[in-house]
């Protein structure tokens, strides 16, 4: 969706962190569906797709995107697009490494899995071992579940496949 005239907008969006997982930008997360600059370069239209229906970060993200772009554009429009629904398949490959480095196991498996199968962390993000088990299917944010490593015993967040 990106084009050369909108590269400035995308570069700015790279600097907007997810408020709950600040190691990821909104671009890493895959929720920016489009960013189009007007021909005169004075205005920009950004289209966002929310992660979860009730995620409290959604409104903060829209606010942060607007505030960041308003530093470079006279007019900023932030649109919400619900369909197609966001999926973790839209996360950038770099996002996986950033999550892992931040102590959060990235999502595993693709959309072809059954609907309720949110995948299983490949390894413990602390010690790298594969012996992990679920503590709870829900976690500190809608996108995460709580797991633990049975080797190093550390609990950790798993970013659910969705």
């Amino acid at each position, binding site marked *: 969706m990106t084009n050369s005239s909108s590269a400035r907008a995308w570069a700015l969006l790279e600097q907007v962190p997810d408020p709950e997982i600040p190691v990821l930008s909104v671009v890493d997360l895959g929720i920016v569906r489009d960013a189009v600059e007007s021909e005169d370069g004075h205005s920009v239209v950004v289209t966002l797709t*929310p992660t*979860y*229906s*009730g*995620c*409290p970060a959604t409104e903060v993200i829209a606010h942060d995107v607007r505030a960041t772009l308003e530093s470079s554009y006279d007019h900023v429009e932030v649109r919400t*697009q*619900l*369909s*197609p*629904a*966001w999926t973790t398949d839209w996360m950038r490959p770099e996002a996986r490494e950033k999550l892992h480095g931040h102590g959060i196991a990235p999502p595993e498996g693709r959309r072809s899995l059954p*609907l*309720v199968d*949110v995948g299983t962390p490949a390894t413990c993000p602390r010690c790298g071992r594969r012996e992990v088990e679920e*503590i*709870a*299917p*829900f*976690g*500190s944010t*809608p996108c995460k579940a*709580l797991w633990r490593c049975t080797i190093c015993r550390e609990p950790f967040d798993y970013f659910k496949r*969705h």
Partner: protein
Amino acid sequence: MSATSDPDLLTVADSCLVLSHRLSEWMSNAPTMEEDIALGNIALDLLGQARGLLQVLGDEDELAYLRGPQEFRNALMCELPNGDFALTLLRLFFVSAWLESVWPALVTSSSAPDVRGVAEKAIKENAYHLRHASTWVIRLGDGTDESHRRMTEALDALWPYRGDFATSGWYDRIEPVLATATLTTPDRDAWTQRSSGDGWHTEHLGYLLAEMQSLARAHPGAKW
């Protein structure tokens, strides 16, 4: 009015909103920290789904905060008090099993793109809620004597309020889970309450709304 998997949009929105409020009443009171977080997450999903539909239907704040009980169209089961943990999870199971057919129906039948968008997202979220609730129904039903007794009592208490969901598809969805939970499914033909569509409710909704709407009514137009 017979139960259908393609109910009125306001019925779906209000059911999600009212059940979300009931689940939020568990915050800091659930049996474990993990379950407190789970119920909070599910309540948030339901609130987001309700908001998405209410925004299509009109001004979401006016619809949520300034309607009286007779103007709400939620399924009756959603407004019943939480009771114990068994009743809360069995109710969530019944409602999620209903929504499992409602959301796909909205994706295919709605002419409003935003309704289809909300429903498309809700399908995935609801599947996860349904799995969680099913797990607990089985765990408690097929658990200790005490947990089985409580699940049985919850089933007896909720069964007369299944009327808004009672399609053959819904029964087919819930009965295997109840059987696995070693619970005896009451008769499909047993008498049931049903939302009339003209604002008939139990006495519990008024109290729920009094709490949910108190801030908005005391401070009209207040901004966060």
